[in-house]
C-alpha cells in the first residue's frame, strides 16, 4: 500500500517538469491514501443506503439457490439459506461501522475525560486514575470485553460498548501525557494569569491543544474496534442471527468450509480491506509517513 508514496512525491518535486504538467495541489495526496478514503466512502454509502447497491435481501433467502459458488448472478455466491453473500456484506456494513463508532466514542470520551482529570486535578487524582489504568491494561482486552459482555448481555451495541471500555485505558494514558505537556506551556500560564478559571482554561486552551494526537489514536482504534467487534460476533457474543454482521457471517460460513469456502472467506476480506483503509488514514492523521 505504501509502495506508491515515495515515488509519487519524488515525481511532484522534480524540478525539470514544466509547470503545466505538474499536478494541482489537491491531486498530490498519495494514491494509497486516496484509495483508503474511497474504501471508507463506499463502506459508508453501503451502510447508509444498502438497497442502492444490491437487488437482493440481506436476510431473506432465495428458494433453490443454496450454496451457489461465485458467478455471474451471485457475484460472491450464496449461503446455506440461499442468501446472496455480497448483499449480506453490504447490509452488514452498517452493523460493523456503527459498532466501531460507538466503541471509539465510548473510549474517546471516557478516556479523554479521565486523562484530563488525571493530568490537571492534582497528585491524588492522578495516582488513583493512573493505577486504575494500569489495572485495565493488565487484563487482556478480550477478557475485559468478555467480562463486560456477560455483565451487559449479548448483542451488537453491548459488544461495541465492551470493546470501547477495553480501549479507555490507552486513551486515558495518551490524553494525560498530552495534558501534562500542554499544561506547562506559556500560553496556558498566561491564560491563568489573566484571570481565567480552571475549567475555562482547560476547556478553551488545554483540551484543544491536547486533542490532535488523541484523534489520531481514535482513527487507529477505529480499525482495531472493527476487528474486536467482528471477533465478538464470531464467538457469538455480538450480533445474533439472522443479522448480517461480518464476524457472525464468518462463524456461520465456518461450518461449510469444506464445501462452500466463499461463505467465510469474503466477509473476512471485507474486514481486512476496511481495517487496512482506516489504518492508512490514521497514519496520515499522525502527520508522518511510516
Amino acid at each position, binding site marked *: 500500500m505504501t509502495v506508491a508514496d515515495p515515488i509519487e512525491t519524488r515525481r511532484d518535486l522534480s524540478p525539470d517538469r514544466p509547470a503545466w504538467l505538474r499536478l494541482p495541489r489537491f491531486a498530490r495526496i498519495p494514491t494509497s491514501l486516496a484509495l483508503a478514503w474511497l474504501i471508507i466512502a463506499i463502506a459508508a454509502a453501503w451502510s447508509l443506503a444498502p438497497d442502492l447497491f444490491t437487488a437482493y435481501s440481506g436476510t431473506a433467502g432465495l428458494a433453490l439457490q443454496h450454496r451457489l459458488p461465485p458467478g455471474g448472478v451471485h457475484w460472491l455466491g450464496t449461503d446455506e439459506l440461499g442468501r446472496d453473500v455480497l448483499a449480506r456484506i453490504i447490509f452488514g456494513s452498517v452493523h460493523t461501522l456503527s459498532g466501531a463508532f460507538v466503541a471509539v466514542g465510548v473510549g474517546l470520551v471516557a478516556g479523554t475525560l479521565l486523562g484530563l482529570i488525571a493530568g490537571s486535578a492534582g497528585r491524588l487524582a492522578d495516582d488513583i486514575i493512573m493505577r486504575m489504568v494500569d489495572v485495565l491494561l*493488565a487484563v487482556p482486552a478480550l477478557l475485559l470485553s*468478555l467480562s463486560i459482555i*456477560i455483565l451487559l*448481555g449479548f448483542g451488537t451495541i453491548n459488544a461495541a460498548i465492551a470493546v470501547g471500555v477495553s480501549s479507555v485505558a490507552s486513551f486515558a494514558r495518551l490524553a494525560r501525557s498530552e495534558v501534562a505537556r500542554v499544561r506547562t506551556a506559556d500560553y496556558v500560564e498566561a491564560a491563568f494569569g489573566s484571570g481565567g478559571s480552571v475549567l475555562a482554561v482547560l476547556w478553551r486552551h488545554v483540551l484543544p491543544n491536547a486533542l490532535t494526537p488523541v484523534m489520531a489514536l481514535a482513527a487507529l482504534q477505529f480499525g482495531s474496534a472493527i476487528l474486536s467487534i467482528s471477533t465478538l460476533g*464470531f464467538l457469538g457474543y455480538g450480533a445474533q442471527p439472522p443479522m448480517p454482521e461480518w464476524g457472525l457471517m464468518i462463524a456461520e460460513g465456518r461450518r461449510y468450509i*469444506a464445501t462452500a469456502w466463499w461463505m467465510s472467506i469474503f466477509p473476512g476480506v471485507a474486514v481486512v480491506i476496511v481495517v*487496512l483503509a482506516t489504518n492508512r488514514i490514521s497514519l496520515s492523521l499522525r502527520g508522518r509517513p511510516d
Partner: protein
Amino acid sequence: MTRYLIERIGQAVIVLWAAFTVTFILLHVLPGDAILIKFQNPDLGLGPQQIAEIRASYGVDRPLWLQYGHAIGSFLSGDFGYSIQAGVPVSESIRANLPPTLWLTGLGSLLAAVIAMIIAFAASLSPFAWLRALVRSAPALFVSIPTFWLGIALIQIFSFRLRLLPVIGAEGWRGLILPVTTLAIPISAPLAQILVRAIDDVATRPFVAVARAKGATHAWVLWRHVFRNALPPALTVAGVLFGELLGGALITETVFGLNGIGRLTQDAVNNQDAAVLQAVAVLSAVGFVVVNLGVDLLHPLLDPRLARKERVLS
C-alpha cells in the same frame, strides 16, 4: 538496583490486588446467576428450597464483603473456588487446560519473533527497492487480519486445497502447525514495525558508518551492531503484546477446536461461571505483570548504558 526491584514488585502487587478487586466486583454484580442456569432445569426436580441449599453450599448467600475476604484469602493459597458448571475446583480445570495453551502461546511468540526478524532484515537487506517496499508494507497488512478468519483461511488452503495437513483434531506437532502460525502472524506485525523503525534509526548513526568503513559486510553490521541496538524497544513492545497473545490464543483455540484456557473461558462466559472467569482474568494479569517486570529487568542487561546509569544513581 535492589530498591528499584522492591519498588517495582510492590507496584506489581498493587496492580494485581486491584485487578482481583475489579474483576470480583464486576463479576459479582452480574445480573445472571450460574447456579440458576445449571440447576433450574425442571428435569432435575429441584425446588426453591434445595436451590437455596446449593447456594449456601457454594457460599454465595453470604454478604459480598465476606465473600470478598474469603475469596482473596483462598486465591492467595492457590484455591480459586469451585466451577459451578463443571462441579470441580477451578484450579483443577485450569491445570487440565493449561498445557495446550502454554504450548500454543510459547511456540506462537517464538514464531512471531522469528517472522518479525525476517521482515526486519528483509526490509533492509533485499537487493531491490520494490521488494523492500513490499516487505515493509507486510506488517500493516498483518495487523488488519482478524485472527479467527486467518485460521479459517489457513485451514481452507492447507487442509482442503493442498491437503498437506489434517483438518481440526490432529494429534501432536502436526496439529499445532496451523494454530501456531495463525496466532503468530498478527502478533509479529507490531514487533516487525518496531524493529524496522529502530533499524532505520540506528543505521544512520556514526558507529555504523565506521564499522562499514572497516570493511564489514552490510549483513554483518546489521546483525552485530544495528540489531543489538534495535532490540530494547522491541522488547518493550513484546511485554505489552502479552495481552494480545492471550486473546489471540483464546480465539485460535476456538477455531481449531483445542481444549485450552480459551475453551474454558468461553464455556465460563456462556454459563456465567464467575469463579472460572475471575481465575482466568487474575492469572492473565499475573502473567502480564510478570512478563513486563521481566522485560524491565532485562533492559539493563541488553543495554549496559542503562545499568551504568542506575549504578551511578544509587
